[in-house]
Protein backbone atom coordinates (compact mmCIF):
# COMPACT_ATOMS: atom_id res chain seq x y z
CA UNK A 1 0.00 0.00 0.00
CA UNK A 2 1.30 3.42 -0.92
CA UNK A 3 -0.49 5.08 1.93
CA UNK A 4 -1.25 3.68 5.34
CA UNK A 5 -4.47 4.35 7.21
CA UNK A 6 -2.48 6.68 9.50
CA UNK A 7 -1.19 8.67 6.51
CA UNK A 8 -4.74 8.99 5.18
CA UNK A 9 -5.86 10.23 8.60
CA UNK A 10 -3.06 12.81 8.58
CA UNK A 11 -4.12 14.15 5.15
CA UNK A 12 -7.76 14.21 6.31
CA UNK A 13 -6.73 16.36 9.25
CA UNK A 14 -4.94 18.78 6.93
CA UNK A 15 -8.05 18.84 4.72
CA UNK A 16 -10.37 19.33 7.73
CA UNK A 17 -12.41 16.24 6.88
CA UNK A 18 -13.76 13.81 9.46
CA UNK A 19 -13.70 10.37 7.80
CA UNK A 20 -15.59 7.25 8.77
CA UNK A 21 -13.54 4.04 9.09
CA UNK A 22 -15.14 2.82 5.84
CA UNK A 23 -14.11 6.00 4.04
CA UNK A 24 -10.56 5.58 5.35
CA UNK A 25 -10.41 2.05 3.99
CA UNK A 26 -11.74 3.18 0.62
CA UNK A 27 -9.28 6.06 0.46
CA UNK A 28 -6.30 3.79 1.22
CA UNK A 29 -7.32 1.71 -1.81
CA UNK A 30 -8.09 4.78 -3.93
CA UNK A 31 -4.73 6.41 -3.19
CA UNK A 32 -3.02 3.15 -4.02
CA UNK A 33 -4.63 2.98 -7.43
CA UNK A 34 -4.41 6.64 -8.32
CA UNK A 35 -0.83 7.19 -7.15
CA UNK A 36 0.23 4.12 -9.14
CA UNK A 37 -1.38 5.70 -12.18
CA UNK A 38 0.37 9.03 -11.46
CA UNK A 39 3.75 7.26 -11.44
CA UNK A 40 3.47 7.41 -15.21
CA UNK A 41 4.71 11.00 -15.02
CA UNK A 42 8.06 9.82 -13.69
CA UNK A 43 8.80 8.28 -17.09
CA UNK A 44 9.28 11.81 -18.38
CA UNK A 45 12.51 13.68 -17.76
CA UNK A 46 11.54 17.23 -16.76
CA UNK A 47 14.83 18.68 -15.57
CA UNK A 48 15.08 22.23 -16.80
CA UNK A 49 11.40 22.35 -17.81
CA UNK A 50 9.66 25.44 -16.44
CA UNK A 51 6.42 24.69 -14.59
CA UNK A 52 3.17 26.11 -16.01
CA UNK A 53 0.78 27.61 -13.46
CA UNK A 54 -1.48 29.30 -15.99
CA UNK A 55 -1.71 28.42 -19.68
CA UNK A 56 -2.28 32.01 -20.76
CA UNK A 57 0.35 34.45 -19.53
CA UNK A 58 -1.29 37.42 -17.89
CA UNK A 59 0.78 39.97 -15.97
CA UNK A 60 -0.49 40.54 -12.44
CA UNK A 61 -3.04 43.30 -12.91
CA UNK A 62 -2.75 46.29 -10.60
CA UNK A 63 -5.53 48.61 -9.56
CA UNK A 64 -5.96 51.58 -7.29
CA UNK A 65 -6.08 50.59 -3.63
CA UNK A 66 -9.71 51.50 -3.12
CA UNK A 67 -12.28 49.77 -0.95
CA UNK A 68 -14.79 47.93 -3.14
CA UNK A 69 -16.61 45.96 -0.44
CA UNK A 70 -20.12 44.70 -1.01
CA UNK A 71 -22.43 47.29 0.46
CA UNK A 72 -25.23 44.99 1.56
CA UNK A 73 -23.99 43.46 4.81
CA UNK A 74 -27.44 42.09 5.54
CA UNK A 75 -27.56 40.05 2.29
CA UNK A 76 -24.08 38.68 2.96
CA UNK A 77 -24.89 37.66 6.53
CA UNK A 78 -28.15 36.00 5.53
CA UNK A 79 -26.31 33.01 4.10
CA UNK A 80 -24.32 32.40 7.30
CA UNK A 81 -25.44 29.37 9.34
CA UNK A 82 -25.20 31.44 12.54
CA UNK A 83 -24.90 35.18 12.99
CA UNK A 84 -25.27 37.75 15.71
CA UNK A 85 -25.43 41.50 15.12
CA UNK A 86 -22.99 42.14 12.23
CA UNK A 87 -20.88 39.06 12.94
CA UNK A 88 -20.53 35.43 11.91
CA UNK A 89 -21.02 33.26 14.97
CA UNK A 90 -18.70 30.27 15.56
CA UNK A 91 -18.16 27.82 18.42
CA UNK A 92 -16.05 29.11 21.28
CA UNK A 93 -12.36 29.25 20.31
CA UNK A 94 -10.65 30.25 23.59
CA UNK A 95 -11.59 28.75 26.94
Amino acid at each position, binding site marked *: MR*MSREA*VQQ*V*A*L*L*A*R*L*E*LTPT*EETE*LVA*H*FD*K*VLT*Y*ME*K*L*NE*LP*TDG*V*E*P*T*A*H*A*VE*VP*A*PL*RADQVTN*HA*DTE*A*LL*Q*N*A*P*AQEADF*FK*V*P*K*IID
Partner: protein
Amino acid sequence: MTPSRLTIHEATALLRTRALSAQELTRAVLDRIHATDARTRSYLTVCEPEALAQAETADRRLAAGDSIPPLCGIPLAVKDVILTKGIRSTAGSKILEHFVPPYDATVTRLLKAAGAVIIGKVNCDEFAMGSSNENSAFFPSRNPWDLSRVPGGSSGGSATAVAADQALAALGTDTGGSIRLPAAFCGVVGLKPTYGRVSRFGVVAYASSLDQVGPLAKDVLDCALVLQAIAGHDPRDSTSVDRPVPNYQATLTQGVQGLKVGIPQEYFVEGMQPEVETAVHQALAALAALGAQPVSISLPHTEYAIATYYLIATAEASSNLARYDGVKYGYRTAQTGNLMDMYCRTRAHGFGSEVKRRIMLGTYALSAGYYDAYYLKAQKVRTLIRQDFLTAFEACDVIATPVAPTVAFRLGEKTADPLTMYLSDIFTIAVNLAGLPGLSVPCGCDAKGLPIGLQLIGKPFGEDTLLQAAYAYEQATPWHTRKPPL
Protein backbone atom coordinates in the same frame (compact mmCIF):
# COMPACT_ATOMS: atom_id res chain seq x y z
CA MET B 1 -44.59 25.80 -34.81
CA THR B 2 -43.52 24.59 -31.39
CA PRO B 3 -41.69 27.59 -29.90
CA SER B 4 -39.55 25.53 -27.50
CA ARG B 5 -37.96 23.75 -30.47
CA LEU B 6 -36.66 26.98 -31.98
CA THR B 7 -33.02 27.98 -32.08
CA ILE B 8 -31.99 31.40 -30.78
CA HIS B 9 -31.63 32.81 -34.28
CA GLU B 10 -35.00 31.45 -35.39
CA ALA B 11 -36.73 32.75 -32.26
CA THR B 12 -35.04 36.15 -32.56
CA ALA B 13 -36.39 36.58 -36.10
CA LEU B 14 -39.93 35.80 -34.90
CA LEU B 15 -39.64 37.98 -31.78
CA ARG B 16 -38.49 40.97 -33.81
CA THR B 17 -41.33 40.70 -36.31
CA ARG B 18 -43.69 40.21 -33.34
CA ALA B 19 -44.85 36.89 -34.82
CA LEU B 20 -44.04 35.46 -31.37
CA SER B 21 -43.89 37.23 -28.01
CA ALA B 22 -41.18 36.67 -25.44
CA GLN B 23 -43.87 35.66 -22.95
CA GLU B 24 -45.28 33.04 -25.34
CA LEU B 25 -41.78 31.70 -25.89
CA THR B 26 -40.95 31.60 -22.18
CA ARG B 27 -44.28 29.93 -21.36
CA ALA B 28 -43.68 27.36 -24.10
CA VAL B 29 -40.28 26.51 -22.65
CA LEU B 30 -41.73 26.33 -19.11
CA ASP B 31 -44.48 24.02 -20.41
CA ARG B 32 -41.85 21.83 -22.02
CA ILE B 33 -39.94 21.68 -18.73
CA HIS B 34 -43.12 20.74 -16.84
CA ALA B 35 -43.95 18.07 -19.41
CA THR B 36 -40.53 16.41 -19.68
CA ASP B 37 -38.26 17.24 -16.78
CA ALA B 38 -39.61 14.52 -14.51
CA ARG B 39 -37.78 12.22 -16.94
CA THR B 40 -34.63 14.18 -17.78
CA ARG B 41 -34.12 15.91 -14.38
CA SER B 42 -32.23 18.79 -15.98
CA TYR B 43 -33.28 21.48 -13.53
CA LEU B 44 -32.40 22.06 -9.88
CA THR B 45 -34.38 25.30 -9.78
CA VAL B 46 -36.93 26.58 -12.28
CA CYS B 47 -37.28 30.38 -12.03
CA GLU B 48 -40.85 30.60 -13.29
CA PRO B 49 -42.05 33.95 -11.85
CA GLU B 50 -38.70 35.64 -12.45
CA ALA B 51 -38.50 34.32 -16.02
CA LEU B 52 -42.04 35.48 -16.82
CA ALA B 53 -41.25 38.93 -15.44
CA GLN B 54 -38.06 39.09 -17.54
CA ALA B 55 -40.06 37.99 -20.60
CA GLU B 56 -42.58 40.76 -19.97
CA THR B 57 -39.74 43.30 -19.84
CA ALA B 58 -38.38 41.83 -23.08
CA ASP B 59 -41.76 42.23 -24.76
CA ARG B 60 -41.86 45.89 -23.77
CA ARG B 61 -38.42 46.44 -25.28
CA LEU B 62 -39.37 44.55 -28.43
CA ALA B 63 -42.54 46.64 -28.75
CA ALA B 64 -40.61 49.88 -28.24
CA GLY B 65 -38.38 48.68 -31.05
CA ASP B 66 -35.24 50.71 -30.51
CA SER B 67 -31.93 49.39 -29.19
CA ILE B 68 -33.14 45.81 -28.72
CA PRO B 69 -30.33 43.84 -27.06
CA PRO B 70 -29.02 40.76 -28.93
CA LEU B 71 -30.60 37.99 -26.80
CA CYS B 72 -33.79 39.87 -26.01
CA GLY B 73 -36.50 37.48 -24.80
CA ILE B 74 -34.41 34.31 -25.26
CA PRO B 75 -34.90 31.72 -22.46
CA LEU B 76 -31.55 30.36 -21.31
CA ALA B 77 -30.52 27.90 -18.59
CA VAL B 78 -27.53 28.49 -16.33
CA LYS B 79 -25.39 25.80 -14.73
CA ASP B 80 -25.78 25.85 -10.98
CA VAL B 81 -22.09 26.64 -10.31
CA ILE B 82 -22.74 30.09 -11.81
CA LEU B 83 -24.13 32.61 -9.33
CA THR B 84 -27.50 34.22 -9.94
CA LYS B 85 -28.51 37.04 -7.61
CA GLY B 86 -31.47 36.11 -5.44
CA ILE B 87 -31.72 32.64 -7.03
CA ARG B 88 -30.40 29.62 -5.15
CA SER B 89 -27.04 28.48 -6.54
CA THR B 90 -25.99 25.10 -5.16
CA ALA B 91 -23.05 24.00 -7.36
CA GLY B 92 -24.73 20.58 -7.14
CA SER B 93 -23.64 20.30 -3.49
CA LYS B 94 -25.48 19.79 -0.21
CA ILE B 95 -23.05 22.22 1.36
CA LEU B 96 -24.58 25.04 -0.75
CA GLU B 97 -28.13 23.62 -0.86
CA HIS B 98 -29.70 26.81 0.51
CA PHE B 99 -27.14 29.34 -0.72
CA VAL B 100 -28.74 32.44 -2.25
CA PRO B 101 -26.05 34.65 -3.81
CA PRO B 102 -26.22 38.37 -3.07
CA TYR B 103 -24.72 39.14 -6.50
CA ASP B 104 -24.63 37.94 -10.10
CA ALA B 105 -21.65 36.28 -11.75
CA THR B 106 -20.31 38.49 -14.54
CA VAL B 107 -21.62 36.04 -17.15
CA THR B 108 -25.10 36.16 -15.56
CA ARG B 109 -24.99 39.95 -15.56
CA LEU B 110 -23.95 39.94 -19.23
CA LEU B 111 -26.76 37.55 -20.22
CA LYS B 112 -29.26 39.78 -18.44
CA ALA B 113 -27.78 42.87 -20.11
CA ALA B 114 -28.18 41.08 -23.45
CA GLY B 115 -31.90 40.76 -22.66
CA ALA B 116 -31.95 37.01 -22.01
CA VAL B 117 -34.56 35.35 -19.80
CA ILE B 118 -32.94 33.16 -17.13
CA ILE B 119 -35.34 30.23 -17.08
CA GLY B 120 -33.60 28.21 -14.40
CA LYS B 121 -30.55 26.64 -12.85
CA VAL B 122 -29.43 23.32 -14.23
CA ASN B 123 -27.96 20.27 -12.58
CA CYS B 124 -24.28 19.34 -12.55
CA ASP B 125 -21.79 17.11 -10.81
CA GLU B 126 -21.00 18.46 -7.35
CA PHE B 127 -18.61 21.41 -7.76
CA ALA B 128 -18.34 20.41 -11.44
CA MET B 129 -16.33 17.33 -10.46
CA GLY B 130 -17.45 14.48 -12.65
CA SER B 131 -17.99 13.17 -16.14
CA SER B 132 -21.49 11.71 -15.87
CA ASN B 133 -23.62 14.00 -13.68
CA GLU B 134 -23.97 11.15 -11.19
CA ASN B 135 -21.99 13.15 -8.61
CA SER B 136 -24.79 15.70 -8.23
CA ALA B 137 -25.76 15.68 -4.55
CA PHE B 138 -29.42 15.91 -5.57
CA PHE B 139 -30.10 13.49 -8.44
CA PRO B 140 -28.50 12.50 -11.73
CA SER B 141 -29.79 14.08 -14.93
CA ARG B 142 -30.63 11.60 -17.66
CA ASN B 143 -29.73 11.55 -21.32
CA PRO B 144 -32.80 12.53 -23.40
CA TRP B 145 -31.70 10.09 -26.15
CA ASP B 146 -31.86 7.15 -23.72
CA LEU B 147 -33.00 7.79 -20.17
CA SER B 148 -30.99 4.82 -18.86
CA ARG B 149 -27.79 6.59 -19.91
CA VAL B 150 -25.83 9.50 -18.47
CA PRO B 151 -25.79 12.88 -20.18
CA GLY B 152 -22.07 13.27 -19.49
CA GLY B 153 -20.66 15.76 -17.05
CA SER B 154 -20.16 17.92 -15.40
CA SER B 155 -22.48 20.32 -17.28
CA GLY B 156 -24.99 17.48 -17.73
CA GLY B 157 -28.11 19.49 -16.96
CA SER B 158 -27.02 22.21 -19.41
CA ALA B 159 -26.77 19.60 -22.17
CA THR B 160 -30.01 17.77 -21.34
CA ALA B 161 -31.93 21.04 -21.12
CA VAL B 162 -30.74 22.14 -24.58
CA ALA B 163 -31.18 18.69 -26.17
CA ALA B 164 -34.68 18.31 -24.72
CA ASP B 165 -35.82 21.83 -25.77
CA GLN B 166 -36.11 22.89 -22.12
CA ALA B 167 -34.01 26.00 -22.89
CA LEU B 168 -32.87 27.56 -26.15
CA ALA B 169 -29.27 27.40 -24.97
CA ALA B 170 -27.37 27.10 -21.69
CA LEU B 171 -24.20 28.10 -19.95
CA GLY B 172 -21.87 25.42 -18.70
CA THR B 173 -18.36 25.33 -17.33
CA ASP B 174 -15.48 23.21 -18.54
CA THR B 175 -12.45 22.29 -16.41
CA GLY B 176 -11.46 19.02 -18.13
CA GLY B 177 -14.21 18.47 -20.70
CA SER B 178 -17.32 19.41 -18.75
CA ILE B 179 -18.96 21.31 -21.62
CA ARG B 180 -17.71 19.23 -24.55
CA LEU B 181 -18.41 15.75 -23.17
CA PRO B 182 -22.09 16.35 -22.30
CA ALA B 183 -22.55 18.28 -25.56
CA ALA B 184 -21.26 15.22 -27.45
CA PHE B 185 -23.32 12.73 -25.41
CA CYS B 186 -26.52 14.76 -25.85
CA GLY B 187 -26.04 15.80 -29.49
CA VAL B 188 -25.69 19.57 -29.01
CA VAL B 189 -22.94 22.08 -29.75
CA GLY B 190 -20.65 23.04 -26.85
CA LEU B 191 -17.74 25.45 -26.70
CA LYS B 192 -15.04 25.85 -24.08
CA PRO B 193 -13.42 29.21 -24.81
CA THR B 194 -9.73 30.04 -24.43
CA TYR B 195 -8.72 30.42 -20.80
CA GLY B 196 -9.22 34.12 -19.99
CA ARG B 197 -11.73 34.81 -22.79
CA VAL B 198 -14.75 34.69 -20.45
CA SER B 199 -14.86 36.00 -16.89
CA ARG B 200 -14.92 33.53 -14.01
CA PHE B 201 -16.10 36.14 -11.49
CA GLY B 202 -19.01 34.69 -9.56
CA VAL B 203 -18.42 31.15 -10.81
CA VAL B 204 -17.94 28.64 -7.99
CA ALA B 205 -14.27 27.73 -8.34
CA TYR B 206 -13.13 24.14 -8.87
CA ALA B 207 -9.67 24.37 -10.48
CA SER B 208 -8.99 28.04 -11.11
CA SER B 209 -6.25 27.65 -13.71
CA LEU B 210 -8.47 25.37 -15.84
CA ASP B 211 -12.10 26.48 -15.31
CA GLN B 212 -13.81 28.34 -18.13
CA VAL B 213 -17.46 29.24 -18.82
CA GLY B 214 -18.98 28.58 -22.24
CA PRO B 215 -22.19 27.97 -24.18
CA LEU B 216 -24.11 24.79 -25.02
CA ALA B 217 -26.49 25.40 -27.91
CA LYS B 218 -28.67 23.75 -30.54
CA ASP B 219 -26.44 24.82 -33.41
CA VAL B 220 -23.18 26.60 -34.17
CA LEU B 221 -24.70 30.02 -34.90
CA ASP B 222 -26.49 29.99 -31.53
CA CYS B 223 -23.22 28.98 -29.88
CA ALA B 224 -21.55 32.03 -31.48
CA LEU B 225 -24.38 34.32 -30.35
CA VAL B 226 -24.11 33.24 -26.70
CA LEU B 227 -20.31 33.42 -26.73
CA GLN B 228 -20.57 36.96 -28.13
CA ALA B 229 -22.71 37.96 -25.15
CA ILE B 230 -20.37 36.60 -22.47
CA ALA B 231 -16.84 37.05 -23.90
CA GLY B 232 -14.62 39.93 -22.89
CA HIS B 233 -12.37 41.40 -20.25
CA ASP B 234 -13.58 41.71 -16.67
CA PRO B 235 -11.49 43.65 -14.13
CA ARG B 236 -13.07 41.45 -11.43
CA ASP B 237 -11.30 38.36 -12.77
CA SER B 238 -7.56 38.92 -12.71
CA THR B 239 -7.02 36.07 -15.18
CA SER B 240 -9.43 37.53 -17.69
CA VAL B 241 -7.60 38.75 -20.79
CA ASP B 242 -7.96 42.32 -22.06
CA ARG B 243 -8.18 41.71 -25.75
CA PRO B 244 -10.80 42.74 -28.33
CA VAL B 245 -13.66 40.29 -28.91
CA PRO B 246 -14.20 39.61 -32.63
CA ASN B 247 -17.66 39.59 -34.19
CA TYR B 248 -18.13 35.81 -34.34
CA GLN B 249 -21.24 35.90 -36.49
CA ALA B 250 -19.58 38.12 -39.11
CA THR B 251 -16.95 35.50 -39.98
CA LEU B 252 -19.09 32.41 -39.42
CA THR B 253 -19.83 31.71 -43.07
CA GLN B 254 -16.28 32.08 -44.40
CA GLY B 255 -15.94 28.33 -44.93
CA VAL B 256 -12.96 26.03 -44.60
CA GLN B 257 -11.29 26.43 -48.01
CA GLY B 258 -7.57 25.89 -47.42
CA LEU B 259 -8.01 25.48 -43.65
CA LYS B 260 -5.35 23.11 -42.35
CA VAL B 261 -6.96 20.53 -40.06
CA GLY B 262 -4.46 18.70 -37.87
CA ILE B 263 -5.26 15.08 -37.07
CA PRO B 264 -3.27 13.79 -34.07
CA GLN B 265 -2.44 10.10 -34.30
CA GLU B 266 -2.53 9.81 -30.49
CA TYR B 267 -6.28 10.50 -30.43
CA PHE B 268 -7.26 7.44 -32.42
CA VAL B 269 -6.53 4.73 -29.90
CA GLU B 270 -7.27 1.09 -29.25
CA GLY B 271 -10.47 0.50 -27.36
CA MET B 272 -12.45 3.22 -29.06
CA GLN B 273 -16.00 2.36 -30.01
CA PRO B 274 -15.68 1.58 -33.76
CA GLU B 275 -18.76 3.65 -34.63
CA VAL B 276 -17.17 6.68 -32.98
CA GLU B 277 -13.99 6.25 -34.96
CA THR B 278 -15.95 5.82 -38.20
CA ALA B 279 -18.12 8.89 -37.55
CA VAL B 280 -15.09 11.06 -36.80
CA HIS B 281 -13.26 9.85 -39.92
CA GLN B 282 -16.37 10.59 -41.99
CA ALA B 283 -16.49 14.08 -40.48
CA LEU B 284 -12.86 14.63 -41.42
CA ALA B 285 -13.64 13.49 -44.96
CA ALA B 286 -16.61 15.89 -45.07
CA LEU B 287 -14.36 18.77 -43.97
CA ALA B 288 -11.85 17.80 -46.69
CA ALA B 289 -14.65 17.72 -49.26
CA LEU B 290 -15.51 21.29 -48.24
CA GLY B 291 -11.96 22.38 -49.02
CA ALA B 292 -10.12 21.80 -45.76
CA GLN B 293 -6.66 20.31 -45.94
CA PRO B 294 -5.98 17.40 -43.56
CA VAL B 295 -2.54 17.40 -41.94
CA SER B 296 -1.13 14.58 -39.87
CA ILE B 297 0.24 15.87 -36.56
CA SER B 298 1.55 14.45 -33.30
CA LEU B 299 0.79 15.41 -29.70
CA PRO B 300 3.33 13.09 -28.06
CA HIS B 301 2.53 13.86 -24.40
CA THR B 302 -1.18 13.05 -24.70
CA GLU B 303 -0.93 9.90 -22.57
CA TYR B 304 0.27 11.97 -19.59
CA ALA B 305 -2.64 14.43 -19.66
CA ILE B 306 -4.99 12.62 -17.27
CA ALA B 307 -2.38 12.10 -14.56
CA THR B 308 -1.26 15.72 -14.93
CA TYR B 309 -4.82 16.99 -14.78
CA TYR B 310 -5.82 15.02 -11.70
CA LEU B 311 -2.83 16.35 -9.76
CA ILE B 312 -3.26 20.00 -10.77
CA ALA B 313 -7.06 20.09 -10.63
CA THR B 314 -7.29 18.36 -7.26
CA ALA B 315 -4.53 20.53 -5.77
CA GLU B 316 -6.39 23.66 -6.84
CA ALA B 317 -9.68 22.18 -5.66
CA SER B 318 -8.32 21.39 -2.21
CA SER B 319 -7.34 25.03 -1.88
CA ASN B 320 -10.54 26.47 -3.40
CA LEU B 321 -12.85 24.28 -1.34
CA ALA B 322 -11.17 25.24 1.93
CA ARG B 323 -13.65 28.13 2.06
CA TYR B 324 -16.55 25.78 2.88
CA ASP B 325 -16.04 25.77 6.61
CA GLY B 326 -19.55 26.29 7.94
CA VAL B 327 -18.85 29.89 8.96
CA LYS B 328 -19.67 32.41 6.25
CA TYR B 329 -22.28 30.60 4.17
CA GLY B 330 -23.64 27.17 3.44
CA TYR B 331 -24.29 24.17 5.60
CA ARG B 332 -23.01 23.74 9.18
CA THR B 333 -23.24 20.49 11.07
CA ALA B 334 -25.51 20.35 14.11
CA GLN B 335 -22.80 18.35 15.95
CA THR B 336 -20.50 21.31 16.42
CA GLY B 337 -18.30 20.51 19.45
CA ASN B 338 -15.23 22.75 19.32
CA LEU B 339 -14.24 24.80 16.28
CA MET B 340 -12.07 22.06 14.75
CA ASP B 341 -14.86 19.47 15.16
CA MET B 342 -17.26 21.92 13.55
CA TYR B 343 -15.00 22.35 10.50
CA CYS B 344 -14.30 18.65 10.06
CA ARG B 345 -17.90 17.48 10.55
CA THR B 346 -19.42 20.24 8.43
CA ARG B 347 -17.17 19.24 5.55
CA ALA B 348 -17.65 15.51 6.17
CA HIS B 349 -21.45 15.84 6.02
CA GLY B 350 -21.61 18.59 3.39
CA PHE B 351 -19.37 17.13 0.68
CA GLY B 352 -20.05 14.04 -1.42
CA SER B 353 -17.58 11.20 -1.85
CA GLU B 354 -15.97 12.28 -5.14
CA VAL B 355 -15.40 15.80 -3.80
CA LYS B 356 -13.79 14.30 -0.69
CA ARG B 357 -11.57 12.05 -2.82
CA ARG B 358 -10.37 15.03 -4.84
CA ILE B 359 -9.78 17.22 -1.79
CA MET B 360 -7.78 14.39 -0.21
CA LEU B 361 -5.64 13.80 -3.32
CA GLY B 362 -5.07 17.52 -3.79
CA THR B 363 -4.17 18.07 -0.16
CA TYR B 364 -1.71 15.20 -0.37
CA ALA B 365 -0.16 16.49 -3.61
CA LEU B 366 0.42 19.89 -2.02
CA SER B 367 1.61 18.62 1.37
CA ALA B 368 5.14 19.00 2.70
CA GLY B 369 7.47 16.40 1.22
CA TYR B 370 5.23 15.54 -1.75
CA TYR B 371 4.83 18.90 -3.46
CA ASP B 372 7.86 18.49 -5.77
CA ALA B 373 7.11 14.86 -6.61
CA TYR B 374 3.48 15.45 -7.54
CA TYR B 375 2.28 19.03 -7.96
CA LEU B 376 5.47 20.57 -9.34
CA LYS B 377 6.10 17.55 -11.55
CA ALA B 378 2.57 17.88 -12.97
CA GLN B 379 3.08 21.58 -13.65
CA LYS B 380 6.25 20.75 -15.61
CA VAL B 381 4.47 18.08 -17.65
CA ARG B 382 1.74 20.64 -18.24
CA THR B 383 4.39 22.76 -19.98
CA LEU B 384 5.28 19.83 -22.26
CA ILE B 385 1.62 19.22 -23.10
CA ARG B 386 1.12 22.89 -23.92
CA GLN B 387 4.26 22.91 -26.09
CA ASP B 388 2.90 19.91 -28.03
CA PHE B 389 -0.07 22.02 -29.11
CA LEU B 390 1.98 25.12 -29.89
CA THR B 391 4.29 23.02 -32.08
CA ALA B 392 1.34 21.32 -33.79
CA PHE B 393 -0.25 24.68 -34.57
CA GLU B 394 2.81 25.64 -36.61
CA ALA B 395 1.56 23.09 -39.15
CA CYS B 396 -2.23 23.48 -38.87
CA ASP B 397 -5.02 25.96 -38.06
CA VAL B 398 -7.33 23.70 -36.07
CA ILE B 399 -7.04 20.20 -34.64
CA ALA B 400 -9.83 17.65 -35.06
CA THR B 401 -10.38 14.68 -32.72
CA PRO B 402 -13.20 12.66 -31.19
CA VAL B 403 -14.70 14.21 -28.04
CA ALA B 404 -14.90 10.87 -26.24
CA PRO B 405 -13.93 7.26 -27.00
CA THR B 406 -17.55 6.06 -26.68
CA VAL B 407 -21.13 7.29 -26.82
CA ALA B 408 -23.03 7.97 -23.56
CA PHE B 409 -22.64 5.12 -21.08
CA ARG B 410 -25.25 3.72 -18.70
CA LEU B 411 -25.95 5.17 -15.26
CA GLY B 412 -23.93 3.24 -12.72
CA GLU B 413 -21.61 1.77 -15.34
CA LYS B 414 -18.52 3.66 -14.14
CA THR B 415 -19.35 4.75 -10.61
CA ALA B 416 -17.61 1.83 -8.93
CA ASP B 417 -14.17 2.83 -10.21
CA PRO B 418 -13.30 6.55 -10.17
CA LEU B 419 -10.24 6.02 -12.36
CA THR B 420 -12.34 4.47 -15.15
CA MET B 421 -14.64 7.47 -14.93
CA TYR B 422 -11.65 9.84 -15.20
CA LEU B 423 -10.64 8.15 -18.47
CA SER B 424 -13.88 9.41 -20.12
CA ASP B 425 -12.10 12.77 -20.39
CA ILE B 426 -9.05 11.41 -22.19
CA PHE B 427 -9.60 13.50 -25.35
CA THR B 428 -10.75 16.73 -23.73
CA ILE B 429 -8.49 17.23 -20.73
CA ALA B 430 -5.27 18.32 -22.48
CA VAL B 431 -7.12 21.25 -24.06
CA ASN B 432 -7.76 22.71 -20.58
CA LEU B 433 -4.16 22.14 -19.51
CA ALA B 434 -3.05 24.09 -22.60
CA GLY B 435 -5.73 26.77 -22.07
CA LEU B 436 -7.01 26.39 -25.64
CA PRO B 437 -10.53 26.75 -27.04
CA GLY B 438 -12.34 23.48 -27.83
CA LEU B 439 -15.67 22.86 -29.50
CA SER B 440 -17.91 19.81 -29.74
CA VAL B 441 -20.22 19.52 -32.73
CA PRO B 442 -22.55 16.56 -33.46
CA CYS B 443 -21.05 14.32 -36.15
CA GLY B 444 -23.21 11.22 -36.23
CA CYS B 445 -24.71 8.50 -34.10
CA ASP B 446 -24.15 4.86 -33.29
CA ALA B 447 -26.49 1.98 -34.22
CA LYS B 448 -28.72 2.81 -31.23
CA GLY B 449 -29.03 6.42 -32.39
CA LEU B 450 -26.85 7.81 -29.59
CA PRO B 451 -25.01 11.00 -30.59
CA ILE B 452 -21.29 11.24 -31.36
CA GLY B 453 -19.27 14.46 -31.16
CA LEU B 454 -16.40 15.85 -33.20
CA GLN B 455 -13.96 17.98 -31.23
CA LEU B 456 -12.28 20.95 -32.88
CA ILE B 457 -9.39 22.51 -30.97
CA GLY B 458 -8.18 26.02 -31.80
CA LYS B 459 -5.22 28.30 -31.27
CA PRO B 460 -5.43 30.65 -28.29
CA PHE B 461 -8.33 33.06 -28.94
CA GLY B 462 -9.13 31.20 -32.16
CA GLU B 463 -12.83 30.77 -31.31
CA ASP B 464 -13.74 32.49 -34.59
CA THR B 465 -11.88 29.87 -36.65
CA LEU B 466 -13.41 27.01 -34.62
CA LEU B 467 -16.92 28.36 -35.11
CA GLN B 468 -16.31 28.85 -38.85
CA ALA B 469 -15.10 25.29 -39.32
CA ALA B 470 -17.90 23.86 -37.19
CA TYR B 471 -20.49 25.92 -39.04
CA ALA B 472 -19.27 24.81 -42.45
CA TYR B 473 -19.37 21.19 -41.30
CA GLU B 474 -22.76 21.51 -39.63
CA GLN B 475 -24.41 23.14 -42.64
CA ALA B 476 -23.15 20.35 -44.89
CA THR B 477 -24.45 17.54 -42.64
CA PRO B 478 -27.84 16.67 -41.09
CA TRP B 479 -26.80 15.95 -37.50
CA HIS B 480 -27.93 19.20 -35.89
CA THR B 481 -31.50 18.61 -37.07
CA ARG B 482 -31.92 15.36 -35.11
CA LYS B 483 -34.05 15.51 -31.96
CA PRO B 484 -34.19 12.96 -29.14
CA PRO B 485 -37.37 10.85 -29.00
CA LEU B 486 -38.58 12.36 -25.76
